[in-house]
Protein backbone atom coordinates (compact mmCIF):
# COMPACT_ATOMS: atom_id res chain seq x y z
CA UNK A 1 0.00 0.00 0.00
CA UNK A 2 2.87 2.39 0.93
CA UNK A 3 4.68 1.60 -2.32
CA UNK A 4 1.56 2.51 -4.26
CA UNK A 5 1.39 5.84 -2.43
CA UNK A 6 5.06 6.46 -3.14
CA UNK A 7 4.59 5.62 -6.80
CA UNK A 8 1.62 7.97 -7.06
CA UNK A 9 3.66 10.73 -5.41
CA UNK A 10 6.56 10.21 -7.79
CA UNK A 11 4.17 10.10 -10.75
CA UNK A 12 2.65 13.44 -9.73
CA UNK A 13 6.08 14.96 -9.15
CA UNK A 14 7.33 13.77 -12.49
CA UNK A 15 4.27 15.03 -14.31
CA UNK A 16 4.55 18.49 -12.76
CA UNK A 17 8.29 18.69 -13.48
CA UNK A 18 7.78 17.66 -17.10
CA UNK A 19 5.03 20.19 -17.62
CA UNK A 20 7.16 22.90 -16.03
CA UNK A 21 10.09 22.30 -18.38
CA UNK A 22 9.04 24.59 -21.23
CA UNK A 23 9.18 27.49 -18.78
CA UNK A 24 12.85 26.82 -18.01
CA UNK A 25 15.09 29.03 -20.06
CA UNK A 26 12.24 31.19 -21.23
CA UNK A 27 14.53 34.23 -21.29
CA UNK A 28 15.99 33.13 -24.60
CA UNK A 29 13.37 33.67 -27.24
CA UNK A 30 14.24 31.47 -30.18
CA UNK A 31 12.28 31.29 -33.34
CA UNK A 32 11.50 27.61 -33.73
CA UNK A 33 10.95 26.45 -37.30
CA UNK A 34 7.51 25.00 -37.82
CA UNK A 35 7.35 21.32 -38.66
CA UNK A 36 5.44 20.19 -41.75
CA UNK A 37 1.81 19.12 -41.32
CA UNK A 38 2.56 15.45 -41.92
CA UNK A 39 5.88 14.34 -40.49
CA UNK A 40 5.56 10.63 -41.08
CA UNK A 41 4.40 7.50 -39.33
CA UNK A 42 5.89 5.02 -36.92
CA UNK A 43 5.38 1.53 -35.62
CA UNK A 44 6.40 0.51 -32.15
CA UNK A 45 6.57 -2.46 -29.81
CA UNK A 46 6.45 -2.67 -26.04
CA UNK A 47 9.61 -4.16 -24.55
CA UNK A 48 8.32 -4.46 -21.00
CA UNK A 49 5.90 -7.29 -21.85
CA UNK A 50 8.52 -9.84 -22.99
CA UNK A 51 10.66 -8.89 -19.97
CA UNK A 52 7.69 -9.49 -17.65
CA UNK A 53 7.13 -12.87 -19.30
CA UNK A 54 10.79 -13.87 -18.98
CA UNK A 55 11.00 -12.94 -15.28
CA UNK A 56 7.76 -14.82 -14.55
CA UNK A 57 5.56 -11.87 -13.70
CA UNK A 58 2.00 -12.48 -12.50
CA UNK A 59 0.75 -11.06 -15.77
CA UNK A 60 2.26 -9.82 -18.99
CA UNK A 61 1.34 -8.49 -22.38
CA UNK A 62 2.72 -8.46 -25.92
CA UNK A 63 1.89 -5.15 -27.54
CA UNK A 64 2.54 -3.39 -30.83
CA UNK A 65 1.16 -0.17 -32.23
CA UNK A 66 1.26 2.39 -34.98
CA UNK A 67 0.99 6.15 -35.01
CA UNK A 68 1.00 9.15 -37.29
CA UNK A 69 2.94 12.35 -36.71
CA UNK A 70 1.40 15.74 -37.43
CA UNK A 71 3.50 18.88 -36.89
CA UNK A 72 5.76 16.83 -34.62
CA UNK A 73 3.21 17.55 -31.88
CA UNK A 74 0.11 15.46 -32.55
CA UNK A 75 0.41 11.67 -32.64
CA UNK A 76 -2.87 9.81 -33.22
CA UNK A 77 -2.20 6.16 -32.51
CA UNK A 78 -3.60 2.70 -32.05
CA UNK A 79 -2.21 -0.14 -29.98
CA UNK A 80 -2.95 -3.85 -30.19
CA UNK A 81 -1.85 -6.48 -27.75
CA UNK A 82 -2.43 -9.81 -26.09
CA UNK A 83 -2.63 -9.86 -22.31
CA UNK A 84 -2.10 -13.01 -20.29
CA UNK A 85 -2.40 -13.93 -16.65
CA UNK A 86 -1.95 -17.37 -15.11
CA UNK A 87 -1.92 -16.95 -11.38
CA UNK A 88 -2.15 -19.24 -8.38
CA UNK A 89 -3.00 -17.85 -4.94
CA UNK A 90 -0.11 -17.21 -2.59
CA UNK A 91 -1.68 -19.05 0.32
CA UNK A 92 -4.09 -21.42 -1.41
CA UNK A 93 -4.50 -23.41 -4.60
CA UNK A 94 -6.96 -21.04 -6.32
CA UNK A 95 -6.08 -20.44 -9.93
CA UNK A 96 -7.03 -17.66 -12.34
CA UNK A 97 -6.28 -17.75 -16.04
CA UNK A 98 -7.00 -15.54 -19.02
CA UNK A 99 -5.37 -14.79 -22.36
CA UNK A 100 -7.05 -12.38 -24.72
CA UNK A 101 -6.43 -9.48 -27.12
CA UNK A 102 -7.07 -5.84 -26.37
CA UNK A 103 -6.80 -2.60 -28.28
CA UNK A 104 -6.44 1.08 -27.59
CA UNK A 105 -6.87 4.21 -29.67
CA UNK A 106 -5.86 7.68 -28.64
CA UNK A 107 -3.43 10.49 -29.15
CA UNK A 108 -0.13 11.68 -27.71
CA UNK A 109 0.89 15.31 -27.64
CA UNK A 110 4.54 16.33 -27.72
CA UNK A 111 5.08 19.10 -25.18
CA UNK A 112 8.65 19.81 -26.35
CA UNK A 113 8.55 22.74 -28.78
CA UNK A 114 12.03 22.07 -30.11
CA UNK A 115 12.34 19.53 -32.91
CA UNK A 116 15.55 18.02 -31.60
CA UNK A 117 14.57 14.36 -31.53
CA UNK A 118 13.58 14.36 -27.84
CA UNK A 119 9.89 14.32 -27.06
CA UNK A 120 7.97 14.80 -23.84
CA UNK A 121 4.62 13.20 -24.40
CA UNK A 122 1.31 13.48 -22.65
CA UNK A 123 -1.53 11.40 -23.98
CA UNK A 124 -4.96 9.99 -23.63
CA UNK A 125 -6.28 6.63 -24.78
CA UNK A 126 -9.45 4.59 -24.89
CA UNK A 127 -8.98 0.88 -24.25
CA UNK A 128 -11.24 -2.10 -24.81
CA UNK A 129 -11.02 -5.82 -24.23
CA UNK A 130 -13.50 -8.71 -24.47
CA UNK A 131 -12.17 -11.88 -22.96
CA UNK A 132 -12.90 -15.23 -21.30
CA UNK A 133 -11.46 -16.13 -17.94
CA UNK A 134 -11.19 -19.27 -15.82
CA UNK A 135 -11.22 -19.58 -12.08
CA UNK A 136 -10.86 -22.77 -10.09
CA UNK A 137 -10.59 -23.69 -6.44
CA UNK A 138 -9.90 -27.44 -6.09
CA UNK A 139 -10.00 -27.23 -2.28
CA UNK A 140 -13.40 -25.56 -2.10
CA UNK A 141 -15.61 -27.64 0.17
CA UNK A 142 -18.52 -27.17 2.50
CA UNK A 143 -17.18 -27.40 6.07
CA UNK A 144 -20.54 -28.40 7.59
CA UNK A 145 -22.67 -30.14 4.97
CA UNK A 146 -19.70 -32.24 3.82
CA UNK A 147 -21.78 -34.88 2.06
CA UNK A 148 -22.73 -32.46 -0.71
CA UNK A 149 -19.19 -31.56 -1.83
CA UNK A 150 -18.62 -30.33 -5.38
CA UNK A 151 -15.62 -28.79 -7.07
CA UNK A 152 -15.43 -25.13 -7.89
CA UNK A 153 -14.38 -24.87 -11.51
CA UNK A 154 -15.65 -21.84 -13.41
CA UNK A 155 -14.41 -21.98 -17.00
CA UNK A 156 -14.94 -19.55 -19.87
CA UNK A 157 -16.55 -16.78 -17.85
CA UNK A 158 -17.17 -13.82 -20.12
CA UNK A 159 -15.85 -10.37 -19.33
CA UNK A 160 -15.63 -7.03 -21.11
CA UNK A 161 -14.02 -3.80 -20.06
CA UNK A 162 -13.65 -0.29 -21.42
CA UNK A 163 -11.23 2.10 -19.83
CA UNK A 164 -9.46 5.43 -20.28
CA UNK A 165 -5.73 6.02 -19.95
CA UNK A 166 -3.83 9.20 -19.22
CA UNK A 167 -0.14 8.93 -19.94
CA UNK A 168 3.06 10.87 -19.56
CA UNK A 169 6.40 9.81 -20.95
CA UNK A 170 9.40 10.67 -23.03
CA UNK A 171 11.29 9.33 -25.98
CA UNK A 172 14.59 9.99 -27.63
CA UNK A 173 16.24 9.21 -30.92
CA UNK A 174 18.71 6.32 -30.75
CA UNK A 175 19.83 6.12 -34.34
CA UNK A 176 18.43 7.28 -37.67
CA UNK A 177 14.83 6.00 -37.65
CA UNK A 178 14.99 4.16 -34.31
CA UNK A 179 13.70 5.69 -31.10
CA UNK A 180 13.36 4.50 -27.54
CA UNK A 181 10.76 5.74 -25.06
CA UNK A 182 8.79 4.97 -21.97
CA UNK A 183 5.58 6.16 -20.52
CA UNK A 184 3.58 5.84 -17.32
CA UNK A 185 -0.16 5.52 -17.43
CA UNK A 186 -3.03 6.11 -15.08
CA UNK A 187 -5.91 3.86 -16.12
CA UNK A 188 -9.51 4.46 -15.06
CA UNK A 189 -12.28 1.97 -15.69
CA UNK A 190 -15.24 3.32 -17.66
CA UNK A 191 -17.42 0.23 -17.78
CA UNK A 192 -17.14 -3.50 -17.25
CA UNK A 193 -19.40 -6.49 -17.53
CA UNK A 194 -18.47 -9.59 -15.59
CA UNK A 195 -19.62 -13.10 -14.77
CA UNK A 196 -22.22 -13.52 -12.04
CA UNK A 197 -19.61 -15.52 -10.11
CA UNK A 198 -17.15 -12.69 -9.72
CA UNK A 199 -14.98 -10.13 -11.44
CA UNK A 200 -11.78 -11.15 -13.22
CA UNK A 201 -8.57 -10.76 -11.27
CA UNK A 202 -6.84 -9.33 -14.35
CA UNK A 203 -8.10 -7.60 -17.48
CA UNK A 204 -5.94 -7.79 -20.63
CA UNK A 205 -4.50 -4.37 -21.41
CA UNK A 206 -5.77 -2.84 -18.19
CA UNK A 207 -3.94 -4.84 -15.54
CA UNK A 208 -5.11 -5.92 -12.13
CA UNK A 209 -8.82 -5.34 -12.02
CA UNK A 210 -10.18 -2.40 -10.07
CA UNK A 211 -11.61 1.08 -10.49
CA UNK A 212 -8.20 2.44 -11.44
CA UNK A 213 -4.62 1.30 -11.71
CA UNK A 214 -1.19 2.38 -12.92
CA UNK A 215 0.82 0.90 -15.75
CA UNK A 216 3.54 1.70 -18.19
CA UNK A 217 5.42 0.65 -21.28
CA UNK A 218 8.96 0.81 -22.60
CA UNK A 219 8.73 1.15 -26.36
CA UNK A 220 11.07 0.67 -29.27
CA UNK A 221 9.86 2.93 -32.09
CA UNK A 222 10.63 2.73 -35.79
CA UNK A 223 9.87 5.74 -37.95
CA UNK A 224 8.57 4.64 -41.34
CA UNK A 225 7.53 6.37 -44.56
CA UNK A 226 8.05 10.08 -44.79
CA UNK A 227 10.24 11.18 -41.90
CA UNK A 228 11.54 14.47 -40.68
CA UNK A 229 15.19 15.09 -40.21
CA UNK A 230 14.73 14.72 -36.42
Amino acid sequence: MNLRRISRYIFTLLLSSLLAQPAIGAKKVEKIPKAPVFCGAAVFADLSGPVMKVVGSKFDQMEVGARLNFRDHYFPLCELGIGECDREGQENSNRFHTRAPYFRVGMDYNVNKKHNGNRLMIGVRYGFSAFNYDFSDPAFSDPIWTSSAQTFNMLNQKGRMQWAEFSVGCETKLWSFIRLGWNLRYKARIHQSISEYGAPYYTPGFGKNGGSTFGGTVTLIFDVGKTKKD
Partner: protein
Amino acid sequence: MRFRQVGMSMGVGLFLLFLIGCESIDCTLNNVVTCNYAFYSADGQQVKVLDTLTVTTEGSDYILYNRGTNVATLSMPMSYWQEADTLNFSFYNAEAQATQNVVIRVKKSNTPHFESPDCPTTMFHELLSIDFDSPTQCVDSVVISNAAVNYESQENIKIYLHTATE
Protein backbone atom coordinates in the same frame (compact mmCIF):
# COMPACT_ATOMS: atom_id res chain seq x y z
CA MET B 1 25.42 12.90 -24.44
CA ARG B 2 22.60 11.07 -26.17
CA PHE B 3 23.49 7.81 -24.42
CA ARG B 4 23.39 9.58 -21.07
CA GLN B 5 19.93 10.91 -21.90
CA VAL B 6 18.76 7.46 -22.92
CA GLY B 7 20.28 5.86 -19.85
CA MET B 8 18.74 8.34 -17.42
CA SER B 9 15.40 8.19 -19.17
CA MET B 10 15.29 4.42 -19.10
CA GLY B 11 16.52 4.27 -15.51
CA VAL B 12 13.77 6.55 -14.23
CA GLY B 13 11.17 4.76 -16.32
CA LEU B 14 12.13 1.28 -15.18
CA PHE B 15 12.31 2.39 -11.54
CA LEU B 16 8.81 3.83 -11.70
CA LEU B 17 7.50 0.77 -13.54
CA PHE B 18 9.03 -1.38 -10.79
CA LEU B 19 7.19 0.64 -8.14
CA ILE B 20 3.94 0.39 -10.04
CA GLY B 21 4.42 -3.35 -10.39
CA CYS B 22 4.33 -3.85 -6.61
CA GLU B 23 1.01 -4.94 -5.22
CA SER B 24 -0.67 -5.94 -2.02
CA ILE B 25 -3.35 -8.53 -1.34
CA ASP B 26 -6.72 -6.80 -1.12
CA CYS B 27 -9.18 -9.33 0.24
CA THR B 28 -12.42 -8.31 1.87
CA LEU B 29 -11.95 -8.13 5.64
CA ASN B 30 -15.42 -9.48 6.33
CA ASN B 31 -15.29 -12.55 4.12
CA VAL B 32 -17.66 -14.79 6.08
CA VAL B 33 -21.03 -15.41 4.47
CA THR B 34 -23.80 -16.04 7.00
CA CYS B 35 -27.58 -15.97 7.05
CA ASN B 36 -28.60 -13.59 9.81
CA TYR B 37 -31.66 -14.22 11.96
CA ALA B 38 -33.27 -11.75 14.37
CA PHE B 39 -35.97 -12.39 16.98
CA TYR B 40 -39.08 -10.24 17.28
CA SER B 41 -42.14 -10.25 19.49
CA ALA B 42 -45.50 -10.80 17.85
CA ASP B 43 -46.05 -7.02 17.84
CA GLY B 44 -42.84 -6.38 15.86
CA GLN B 45 -40.40 -5.28 18.60
CA GLN B 46 -36.92 -6.80 18.47
CA VAL B 47 -36.45 -8.99 21.55
CA LYS B 48 -34.00 -11.32 23.25
CA VAL B 49 -34.68 -14.99 23.77
CA LEU B 50 -34.56 -15.74 27.53
CA ASP B 51 -34.53 -19.50 27.05
CA THR B 52 -31.33 -21.38 26.33
CA LEU B 53 -31.13 -21.68 22.56
CA THR B 54 -29.38 -24.41 20.59
CA VAL B 55 -29.45 -24.70 16.81
CA THR B 56 -28.55 -27.89 14.95
CA THR B 57 -28.72 -28.93 11.33
CA GLU B 58 -31.01 -31.65 10.14
CA GLY B 59 -29.14 -34.30 8.24
CA SER B 60 -25.67 -33.77 9.69
CA ASP B 61 -26.65 -33.09 13.34
CA TYR B 62 -23.98 -30.42 13.36
CA ILE B 63 -24.39 -27.93 16.23
CA LEU B 64 -24.38 -24.46 14.71
CA TYR B 65 -25.14 -22.62 17.93
CA ASN B 66 -24.81 -24.09 21.41
CA ARG B 67 -26.68 -23.06 24.56
CA GLY B 68 -26.94 -19.33 24.02
CA THR B 69 -28.99 -17.10 26.31
CA ASN B 70 -30.30 -13.56 25.83
CA VAL B 71 -30.00 -14.05 22.09
CA ALA B 72 -31.29 -11.22 19.91
CA THR B 73 -29.61 -12.12 16.62
CA LEU B 74 -27.96 -15.20 15.15
CA SER B 75 -25.55 -15.65 12.27
CA MET B 76 -25.74 -19.10 10.71
CA PRO B 77 -23.76 -20.60 7.84
CA MET B 78 -25.68 -22.06 4.93
CA SER B 79 -24.94 -25.20 2.97
CA TYR B 80 -22.94 -24.62 -0.21
CA TRP B 81 -24.74 -26.94 -2.59
CA GLN B 82 -28.08 -28.04 -1.09
CA GLU B 83 -31.28 -26.51 -2.44
CA ALA B 84 -32.73 -26.16 1.07
CA ASP B 85 -31.41 -26.11 4.63
CA THR B 86 -33.38 -27.42 7.57
CA LEU B 87 -32.45 -26.10 11.01
CA ASN B 88 -33.72 -27.28 14.40
CA PHE B 89 -34.11 -24.51 16.98
CA SER B 90 -34.35 -25.84 20.55
CA PHE B 91 -35.57 -23.40 23.21
CA TYR B 92 -34.84 -24.81 26.69
CA ASN B 93 -36.58 -23.22 29.66
CA ALA B 94 -34.58 -24.05 32.79
CA GLU B 95 -37.35 -23.10 35.22
CA ALA B 96 -39.95 -25.26 33.56
CA GLN B 97 -37.30 -27.79 32.49
CA ALA B 98 -39.06 -27.97 29.14
CA THR B 99 -37.75 -27.82 25.59
CA GLN B 100 -39.66 -26.41 22.66
CA ASN B 101 -38.43 -27.41 19.22
CA VAL B 102 -38.94 -25.40 16.05
CA VAL B 103 -37.91 -26.59 12.59
CA ILE B 104 -37.17 -23.93 10.00
CA ARG B 105 -36.68 -24.83 6.32
CA VAL B 106 -35.06 -22.32 3.99
CA LYS B 107 -35.09 -22.81 0.22
CA LYS B 108 -32.30 -20.97 -1.56
CA SER B 109 -30.14 -20.66 -4.64
CA ASN B 110 -26.35 -21.00 -4.43
CA THR B 111 -23.94 -18.81 -6.36
CA PRO B 112 -20.17 -19.36 -5.98
CA HIS B 113 -18.25 -16.13 -5.63
CA PHE B 114 -14.57 -15.35 -6.09
CA GLU B 115 -12.61 -12.14 -5.67
CA SER B 116 -9.01 -13.03 -6.39
CA PRO B 117 -6.74 -16.08 -6.38
CA ASP B 118 -5.38 -14.86 -3.04
CA CYS B 119 -8.77 -14.60 -1.35
CA PRO B 120 -10.91 -17.48 -0.10
CA THR B 121 -13.73 -18.56 -2.38
CA THR B 122 -17.21 -18.18 -0.90
CA MET B 123 -20.80 -19.04 -1.66
CA PHE B 124 -23.52 -16.40 -1.93
CA HIS B 125 -27.20 -17.31 -1.63
CA GLU B 126 -30.58 -15.94 -2.58
CA LEU B 127 -33.37 -16.93 -0.20
CA LEU B 128 -36.37 -18.20 -2.17
CA SER B 129 -38.87 -19.29 0.46
CA ILE B 130 -39.12 -20.20 4.12
CA ASP B 131 -41.48 -22.30 6.23
CA PHE B 132 -41.48 -23.70 9.75
CA ASP B 133 -42.99 -26.24 12.16
CA SER B 134 -43.64 -25.09 15.71
CA PRO B 135 -45.66 -27.80 17.47
CA THR B 136 -45.78 -25.85 20.75
CA GLN B 137 -46.70 -22.54 19.06
CA CYS B 138 -43.46 -21.03 20.37
CA VAL B 139 -42.91 -19.26 17.04
CA ASP B 140 -45.67 -17.13 15.59
CA SER B 141 -44.24 -16.64 12.10
CA VAL B 142 -41.00 -16.55 10.13
CA VAL B 143 -40.41 -14.18 7.22
CA ILE B 144 -37.58 -13.30 4.85
CA SER B 145 -36.60 -9.65 5.35
CA ASN B 146 -33.67 -9.61 2.93
CA ALA B 147 -33.16 -12.40 0.41
CA ALA B 148 -29.51 -11.68 -0.38
CA VAL B 149 -27.05 -13.63 1.75
CA ASN B 150 -23.55 -12.31 1.16
CA TYR B 151 -20.73 -10.41 2.87
CA GLU B 152 -22.90 -7.55 3.99
CA SER B 153 -24.09 -9.01 7.28
CA GLN B 154 -27.58 -7.63 7.00
CA GLU B 155 -30.61 -9.19 8.63
CA ASN B 156 -32.09 -11.89 6.39
CA ILE B 157 -34.80 -13.63 8.41
CA LYS B 158 -37.20 -12.38 11.09
CA ILE B 159 -38.48 -14.90 13.65
CA TYR B 160 -41.61 -13.69 15.44
CA LEU B 161 -42.00 -15.34 18.87
CA HIS B 162 -44.99 -15.86 21.11
CA THR B 163 -43.14 -16.33 24.40
CA ALA B 164 -39.85 -16.34 26.34
CA THR B 165 -38.79 -12.83 25.53
CA GLU B 166 -37.82 -9.69 27.41
